[in-house]
């Protein structure tokens, strides 16, 4: 069940927008592929990200994956609870498993992302 109110990247990140603040995470599909997540490396607040650039790394027991920014902006905060309980990314990737909050610099970039149906189609093929 893909949340319909989010936008998605081809690299399996999701973004939720509230005003000019974007919240970013990875999808259930990505979390399932990775397996038990053990560590998430996130950027410091204040860092400026460009769209689709890597902003961090997610590690599972047997794999590692880069994280790509769905939108450009300034990092406001990373989800500090992931340090102690990274497994919440597996159990609640769209809620408590959020990773990053960014101040959006260009809301127009959202148009370039996939909607729920398009992302659903992408993962069905894969």
């Amino acid at each position: 069940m893909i949340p319909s109110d989010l936008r998605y990247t081809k690299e399996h990140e999701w973004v939720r927008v509230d005003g000019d603040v974007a919240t970013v995470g990875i999808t259930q599909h990505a979390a399932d592929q990775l397996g038990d997540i053990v560590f998430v490396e996130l950027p410091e607040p204040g860092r400026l990200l460009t769209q689709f650039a890597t902003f961090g790394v997610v590690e599972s027991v047997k794999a590692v994956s880069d994280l790509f920014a769905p939108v450009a902006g300034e990092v406001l905060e990373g989800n500090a609870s992931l340090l102690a309980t990274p497994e919440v990314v597996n159990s609640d990737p769209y809620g408590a498993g959020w990773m990053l909050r960014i101040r959006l610099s260009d809301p127009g970039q959202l148009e370039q992302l996939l909607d729920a149906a398009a992302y659903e189609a992408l993962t069905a093929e894969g």
Partner: protein
Amino acid sequence: MSVTGPKLQPTLFELSGTGRAAGRRIPAPPADALDRLPAAARRAVPPALPEVDEASLVRHYVNLSQLNWGVDTGFYPLGSCTMKYNPKVNEWAARLPGFAALHPLAPDETAQGTLEMLWELERDLAEISGMDAVTLQPAAGAQGELTGMLVVRAYHRARRDLERTDVLIPDSAHGTNPATASMAGFRTVNIPSAPDGGVDLEAFRAALGSHTAAIMITNPSTLGLFERRIVELLELVHAAGALAYMDGANLNAILGRFRPGEAGFDVMHFNVHKTFSTPHGGGGPGAGPVGVRGPLIPFLPAPRVLREPGGTFRLERPGERPASIGRMRGHVGNVGILLRAWAYIRAHGADGLREVSDDAVLAANYLRGRLEADGAFEVPYPGPCAHEFIASGAGLKRATGVRTLDVAKRLIDKGYHPPTIYFPHTVDEAMLIEPTETERLETLDAFADALLEIAREAHETPELVTSAPHSAPVRRLDEATAARQPNLRWRPENRAELPRPG
């Protein structure tokens, strides 16, 4: 036979007791021995090291050893690792006091035996590989790779060819290859494999250019296949002004049949703990000598072992070869390991080594044939393989949900160490199987029988397979918690957290 029976052991710290005197190893020093040291430099609190009597210590380690699986225990068909028998005469040799007690900074004239052995080993490996010179310095295969790539870097820089930033690496390569390229300051360009398992020549040609420093190829490949297009590949590489590096991990397949230097490779590394029988030690130590063709000799690490006209041996002096990339590690190499490799080569001679590869390749093909005939596991690259082959559990997973991981764990119950799994990454649900030349035919057949039996179990009683192993000293481990909340050292609190065994 599988690894069962003996109980797990508490840690040394839990066996410790004050006054359990580890034994009177040396006479007591004078009480004031350390008084001349300033208090600020001295340790305020003694280290909390365990005090265990020798008998308990021995039981601790003997019981722990019995929780392990070695080549001495049974079949170990780990693809790309070459788990062949480790000859015991080599263990005797390494322990001869003349070899073991020699200090690495002792003057050359006191080290003539070891220097002669090292010089001969350099020549033996050069001869086996068709290279012009060999360094024995690298401490491991991966360090050999780094050595080779730093030599490549030095070569191009010496020719003022500073735009060569890329290294081309097949996507089936061992992870050390791209990691090495990064450490040597290069960018990795991944080259896809063609459907027949070899390098995709068109993709390769497209990626090759004036920015290419080198290609790193494992031959035979990690799929257990000799690179059929090797001649074209090498010609293309050299035409582009780049160098060809061969990862020699799979040398056990080609001894006496293919000499990389002779064929056109410029540089390669050897894994003596694979091809030349030095023991794996539970994860090391090994050694990774590197062979090069003539133009690269000036860049080899220093010091090299030299032979004087009068027949004596010496180490190169500092500054004697200024183009050298320098030192990769302390001293001249993992000499104790290299000695074992020297002895192995001496015991075989050229004919013996060729026979090693003949038997290794024959055994692998026989085992491949057994699995191909049955069909429970796919063999994605049918037809002759080198000394190892890939089988896939993808079909089994689709039909039963049982994965290669589960099959591997169930093999433990059948009395076998599992083969390499999920490598190379280019094959789904991969199993890389390398029997080596030192296994009896009965063992090969019994192993095939066991694998096929597990395939049947996957259909009939999948739970048995997915919850395996049942007969190992421990069941499957919680690796997620181990990575999330790492416990990397003993603390007294651990006693309460996780039950003490026994």
